[in-house]
């Protein structure tokens, strides 16, 4: 059964290029930086997080810039390995973290769809079969056969969104960039996401927008300086803000 289980997960970013001792001392005076066992200055991006997300939950990650929302998404996606703790994500992961990731600006939309399929481990034929579906959903029309470099920001977002959601992931990890779509597409995106979530999958969404949280999510986790400061029903946690 799809679920996410996080026990005592800590992520630390080493700051390798800090040499000067005085600078090191000054930085260490601040609370989120510390020196690890091998005398490197590290930023504690996530500190001993504990939570469990069950099937069907729509979880919002909220908090100020730099609170660790995106880092947590990337950790769940398997990009960063924790330095401490246990992590378990069951279910096919779909991550919408950066719209431009793995997109080749010089290739056409259609070529990018095939490339994205290859990134996912599909064959070229399977990816080509998806191209029309993605083209229709993203409303790109004849732009599908034009290099992505010429797309507007909104068109790129639409293409990325369509490419990321066409596989129907069981665990959808999403950063708030998807809000950049135009109004007509937002409506479509919402319908699509509702379908995904209604299929008893998991949504983890990092956002600043409390209206989105209340509308979309059943649960909210508030992060502050890499720690969980509130975790509960979306209405309750957002009211405290």
């Amino acid at each position, binding site marked *: 059964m799809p679920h996410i289980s996080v026990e005592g997960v800590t992520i630390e970013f080493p700051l390798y290029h800090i040499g000067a001792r005085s600078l090191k001392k000054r930085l260490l005076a601040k609370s989120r930086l510390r020196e690890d066992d091998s005398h490197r200055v590290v930023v504690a991006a996530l500190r001993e997080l504990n939570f469990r997300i069950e099937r069907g939950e729509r979880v919002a990650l909220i908090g100020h810039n730099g609170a660790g929302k995106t880092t947590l998404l990337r950790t769940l996606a398997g990009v960063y390995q924790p330095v401490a703790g246990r992590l378990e994500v069951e279910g096919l992961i779909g991550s919408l973290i950066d719209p431009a990731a793995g997109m080749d600006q010089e290739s056409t939309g259609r070529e990018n769809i095939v490339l994205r399929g290859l990134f996912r481990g599909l064959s070229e034929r399977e990816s080509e079969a998806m191209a029309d579906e993605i083209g229709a959903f993203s409303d790109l029309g004849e732009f599908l056969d034009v290099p992505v470099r010429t797309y507007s920001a909104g068109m790129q977002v639409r293409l990325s969104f369509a490419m990321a959601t066409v*596989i129907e992931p069981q665990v959808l990890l999403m950063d708030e960039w998807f809000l950049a779509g135009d109004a007509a597409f937002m409506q479509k995106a919402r319908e699509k996401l509702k379908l995904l979530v209604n299929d008893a999958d998991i949504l983890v969404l990092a956002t600043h927008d409390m209206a989105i949280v209340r509308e979309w999510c059943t649960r909210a986790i508030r992060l502050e300086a890499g720690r969980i400061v509130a975790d509960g029903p979306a209405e309750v946690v957002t009211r405290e803000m």
Partner: protein
Amino acid sequence: MLDQPRQNEAEAPVYRFDAAMPRRREDAVEDLVTGLRRWRLPVALAWLDLRNRYRGSVLGPFWMTLSTGAMVLGLGLLYASLFKQPFEKFLPFVAVSLIIWNLIAQTVTDACTSLTSAEGIIRQMPLPYSVHVLRCVFRNALIAAHNLPLILIVFVACGLWPGTEAFGAIPGLLVLALNAFFAALLLGMLCARFRDIGPIVASVMQLGFFLTPVIWEPRLLQGSGDWLLLNPFYPMMEIVRGPLIEGGASLGVWLAAIAYTVVAGAVALAFFVRFRGRIAFWV
């Protein structure tokens, strides 16, 4: 986790990580196996790299062929007169040597950025790191495919025919490919962590050009030729060059090449097993 199966497969994929019990060796093996099984992705990315580099140019990647050809001709003329050798005899040697040296030097230099150049992808999606390493290997293989045919042109132009022994260069090229993989793996990681390694490697390769018999022939060393085997670039070059112009490479050269390959492989894989989990923090 790295190779997400399709949705119609019954079992849901599970991504598990426990910092107290890291499965470093299993993860590294899975990374390499998945990367190799999905060779189509690095091949496609390598093609894109080359296509984007020459986007909009009329000759495209054949600019590489042309510039290598010009260099071979120019240096061939210069050194044939410096060393007082007949041009049509010296040119095949210089052509083969320079093209193989360029192949080695470009691959080693490119290996330094195999992971840092994929930074955007590494931080956004979990992919086997071996995909980025293979991308670098395939990219250089494609570049080599644009340069190696020049050897044939030079041979035809000089009326030289190396005979069937020339096929002996194929195992040599395969050994080079294997070494390219290890170099891209090891240097890719080292250069991601220590940003000074890249410039060091660049200057080592520059020095290597003069210390390796690229434009001078090994027999000029007179007797102290065995010391050449201590230069790893010499056996690597000779296993391809030997079959093409001397009817084969000596046993000593082959043994040295295999020994260097084993060492490179052992060091690269050991590093990969130990530090694979840190790469995302380094790039």
